[in-house]
């Protein structure tokens, strides 16, 4: 059914990306947004925007009725769901069609079939698609699941039948840990999908995650656009995606492609879809699941095929035949994508919130940045903390990889913690460089987790010099008649001023003295002579002990955020008299991140030992244990179960004994 106005029922980078293509195709575009997203990029990009609720997704981006109402109000003929949210909600797809609108995606039946992992697997086995041995029975009793697990053999994966994206998913190494994993996975699955049904699968560890992009129209044409290798995963979440798969041969591609097309045909598929497989070194591959939507990582396919997948989706949705055949699909070079997240890799990948003070996407050749952020925006606790995707293309994998590292360095977000260093580190790992990464690669590369950056004296000196330079500029701006000639000069020797900076929990003492041409900073026994050859609008070129350093900086009076290479460093300067409140906080348990409090074990008056579980906070798909930081007596519990917390909320107080 032809349409000329498209509503995008999503937010962030994918909404922006869809809007751009739609606009390029001449469509009128409508965005939906929440109060928390009022300043977001997709709102600014769309021709029209409709408010659909406050922050929480249940009242907004997951509320199909409001979205359909918004489409009807604005005269939109079609709804593009993006990924996540309602993109794989069969009920929603049905409602959209029932309202006389076009849902950009497969029909509700295909979504439903592929959305239920157990149904999908049964269906695929029937269609001759190779599947991982497992259990997808209706009997969800512990006994049934335990017996099935024993039959399949450990290690085993426990998964939510209705799930995706790692939610409700647990790897179980032996029978002893099975029941607890089932309980946790069920709870997560119930919270995330409203259904606690689980499936079991033989865990295949030394394999690659290889997925085939398929495309189907309403006229029986189904093609595949080649594969993507998404083996670099952390807790089943993709970190790096690339195309083609480094190990792929054209024979294997043809074989997997044919199977993927079979899978799509089995559900009478329409539009863009992805069939995910595990590929073993032997060349054997098993069906994992089919994602009935546009994937996050679709740009790598776009970059090597030269196709615009959103444009193809829209064409198919308009009722057109696919404008290309399988023979038209060419593979040109190599593309790699990384996902830039607001999270702290060296702190268990804790999701971060906060303002985006600086946003500077890379703009070098062969690089594409799909972003949903803009400067001044808040990273909200309500939504997925992905900030942007950075994709690099090159004639060879190595050039693409080198370009991508450079692009990650040059893409600067300041204001919230990001995983940029983690990304460049992974891109530089030997196994990844060789193209050998399997799905266990990240766990093997960082068995102790991602190490925290050891800040250097040079970093501290640069941060302090930047703060002092800003102090000086502020003083000069408010002073009377002071010529530039006078700056950094004193007629007699002054002592260096001292400053205490913090980097995370680390306190650093520094001393500094102005010179007419810059600053000298002393940290312990090291001396740093720093001159700024440019320092304006956050662009810094410093000469530190005769070596040039380029940085992007964002400064407030006592906070210096600097981007040097892939490092994004935040230094705070302690003001005299301002520390007293902070030092008294050791027995105060503070919410480490925003989330829903699903359990409170702490009770006032109870004795606790350091490490005792006090509460469980569910945030960003994970259940985080909140434990006692000191031995002592609980003096106050300020929170209760079911409460939504924001990062920094004081939860519990313990008097140290």
């Amino acid at each position, binding site marked *: 059914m032809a349409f000329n106005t498209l509503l995008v029922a999503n937010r962030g980078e994918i909404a922006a990306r869809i809007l751009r293509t739609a606009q390029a195709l001449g469509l009128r575009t409508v965005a939906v947004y929440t109060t928390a997203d009022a300043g977001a990029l997709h709102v600014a990009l769309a021709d029209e925007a409709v408010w659909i609720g406050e922050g929480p997704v249940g009242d907004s981006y997951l509320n199909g009725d409001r979205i359909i109402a918004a489409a009807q109000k604005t005269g939109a003929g079609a709804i593009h769901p993006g990924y996540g949210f309602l993109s794989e909600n069969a009920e929603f797809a049905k409602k959209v069609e029932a309202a006389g609108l076009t849902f950009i995606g497969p029909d509700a039946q295909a979504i439903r079939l592929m959305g239920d992992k157990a149904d999908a697997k049964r269906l695929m086995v029937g269609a001759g698609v190779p599947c991982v041995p497992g259990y997808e029975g209706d009997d969800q009793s512990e006994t049934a699941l335990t017996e099935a697990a024993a039959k399949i053999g450990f290690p085993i994966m426990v998964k939510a039948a209705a799930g995706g994206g790692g939610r409700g998913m647990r790897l179980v190494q032996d029978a002893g840990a099975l029941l607890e994993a089932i309980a946790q996975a069920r709870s997560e699955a119930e919270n995330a999908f409203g259904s606690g049904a689980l499936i079991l699968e033989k865990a295949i560890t030394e394999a690659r995650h290889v997925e085939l992009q398929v495309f189907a129209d309403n006229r029986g044409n189904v093609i595949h656009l080649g594969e993507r290798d998404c083996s670099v995963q952390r807790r089943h979440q993709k970190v790096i995606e690339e195309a083609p798969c480094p190990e792929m041969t054209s024979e294997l591609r043809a074989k997997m492609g044919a199977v993927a097309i079979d899978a799509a045909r089995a559900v009478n598929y329409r539009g863009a879809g992805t069939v995910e497989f595990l590929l073993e070194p032997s060349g054997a591959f098993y069906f994992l699941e089919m994602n009935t939507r546009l994937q996050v990582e679709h740009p790598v396919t776009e970059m090597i095929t030269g196709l615009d997948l959103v444009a193809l989706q829209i064409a198919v949705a308009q009722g057109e035949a696919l404008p290309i055949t399988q023979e038209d699909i060419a593979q040109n070079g190599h593309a790699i994508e990384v996902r830039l997240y607001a999270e702290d890799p060296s702190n268990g990948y804790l999701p971060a919130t906060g303002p985006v003070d600086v946003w500077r996407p890379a703009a070098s050749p062969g690089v594409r940045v799909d972003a949903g952020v803009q400067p001044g925006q808040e990273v909200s606790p309500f939504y997925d903390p992905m900030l942007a995707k950075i994709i690099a293309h090159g004639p060879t994998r190595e050039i693409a990889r080198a370009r991508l590292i450079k692009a990650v360095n040059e893409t600067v977000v300041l204001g919230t913690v990001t995983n940029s260093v983690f990304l460049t580190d992974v891109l530089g790992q030997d196994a990844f460089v060789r193209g050998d990464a399997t799905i266990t690669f990240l766990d093997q590369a960082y068995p102790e987790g991602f190490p925290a950056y050891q800040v250097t004296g040079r970093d501290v000196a640069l941060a302090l010099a930047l703060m*002092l*330079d800003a*102090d*000086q500029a*502020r*003083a*000069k*701006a*408010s*002073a*009377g*008649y*002071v*010529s530039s*000639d*006078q*700056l*950094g*000069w*004193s*007629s*007699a*020797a*002054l*002592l*260096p*001023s*001292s400053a205490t900076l913090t980097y995370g929990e680390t306190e650093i003492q520094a001393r*500094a003295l*102005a010179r007419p041409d810059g*600053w000298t900073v002393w940290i312990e026994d090291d001396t740093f002579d720093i001159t700024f050859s440019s320092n304006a609008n956050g662009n810094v070129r410093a000469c530190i002990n005769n070596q040039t350093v380029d940085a992007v900086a964002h400064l407030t009076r006592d906070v210096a955020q600097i981007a040097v290479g892939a490092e994004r460093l935040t230094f705070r300067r302690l*003001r*005299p*008299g301002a520390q*007293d409140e902070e030092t008294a906080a050791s027995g105060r348990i503070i919410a480490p991140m925003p989330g829903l409090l699903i359990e409170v074990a702490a009770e006032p008056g109870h004795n606790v030992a350091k490490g005792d579980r006090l509460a469980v906070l569910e945030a960003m798909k994970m259940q985080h244990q909140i434990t006692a930081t000191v031995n002592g007596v609980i003096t106050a519990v300020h929170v209760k179960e079911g409460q939504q917390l924001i990062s920094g909320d004081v939860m519990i107080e313990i008097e140290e004994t």
Partner: protein
Amino acid sequence: MGFVSQVVRDSETYAKNRADMLALIDEMRALEARPAALSEQRRERMEARGQITPRDRLAHLLDPGMPFLQLHGLAGFCVDTDDPQKSVPGASLIIGIGFVSGVRCMIIVDDAGIKAGALVEMSGAAFLSAQDMALKQNLPFVHLVESAGANLMEYKVEFWANGGKLFRNLARHSAAGLPNVAVLHGPSTAGGAYMPGLADYVVGVKQNGMAALAGAALVHAATGEKANDRDLGGSEMHATTSGLVEYLAEDDAHGIEMARGVMARLDWNKSLPNRRSKEVQPPKFDPEEIAGVVPIDYRIPYDVREVVARIVDGSDFEDFKPGYGPATVCLQAAINGIAVGILGNNGPLDPAGANKASQFIQLCGQADTPLIFLNNITGFMVGTQYEQGGMIKHGAKMIQAVTSVDVPKITLYIGASFGAGNYGMCGYAYDPDFLFAWPNAATGVMGGEQAAGTMEMVARAGFQRKGIEPDEGKLAAQKAAITAHFNKQESAFYTSGRCIDHGVIDPRDTRRVLGFCLETCLEGRARSVKPSSYGVHRF
């Protein structure tokens, strides 16, 4: 066009001049370092008390990277002892003009690292000089207080009598509409208690800050009361009970932060008119070269234009009447874009030179152009020809002009500054806004040899009148004694020790010092303040 320098940078003369001047500068820096080193010895003791040292306090107080002009750094040199090797200059104070939260302030830090900040003989003179300057230049005043008061063992009645002016000046300063802030870092007793008492804003540091008319010992002696110092005058008491302290600080650094906060909240420059910004060219000749251009012996002549070319914008100046009274040099130039009139000496003042200078001074007065006096003057010319030519009346006109002209006046002693020549060239008694000496300067009524020679002539005439043979041995001894007596007093370090200038500077800093002083004068004069009759009372 422009000035053509005759200086040859790779000449022996240049190298010798430079070596001589750098040696003097080193001597000056070594003298400045003496009180700092002595005070530094108390660091551990002070830090153990939770305090920071006086110089650390200053570093905390000042805006990073903003200029600082030290004043009276050598105050008291050779006053405490005749021995220049042992004398500790500084008068137990650190004084200067600097920036606090963007506000140009007069700053005095009690050097509590030296004899617990007890005042010494020249402390009063230096303090008063700084206060006078603050009043004249409309500068707010910040005092970081920690002083044991006057040393009773060195008590002189005139110290006490003159000391009252410190407090009178504080009252005048407040009444002039100029805020002053005191941070009570340590004790401030007896008369010193009026330092916070007369301050507009007082920050008291917990534990250490203390102000009382009499400490526990004196109270016990006077009234028999057994009191303790914290109850008598602790910051905490003053903040809650007496009302002497407005802001209570956790420690020294916090107190200074609070003082910075007071200054920041004044929005002090809110009504200061903008100065038209101009593109300023640095001098074409490097100011660094001054050290090699100027011989330290004032008897060796050189062209003062060589100095000016290393001070003024673009080394660009206009000679006023260069052919008339040529030994007196009058130049129009600019420093940091500020037009100035510069007077210099290439020889003694003669009638034509004095007349030219007087006219030049009046022209600067007419145009409100600041004047800079580069003193290298041995005096007005003497001799029949000059007396008959009216040297006295021409000199008198110049002194009148210098006295009366109402523009910022900055005097530098860059060589000799003798006799009435010093008066004509705006010496100490002519109250210039700023007066600095180079380390090679020689100041006095006349040179030592000249004085000794004069006295020898008088003595020989006496012998002759009495018809006796001159006693050559006695004459030689007298000559040596007079020369030594004069020479000792003419050195820049000695005169600065007596506070008859504002300090000694590195000649290579001259452009920056003059720029700073000119900007201070212009800012002070452009500022509109709100004077009141009585100052702000403390309630």
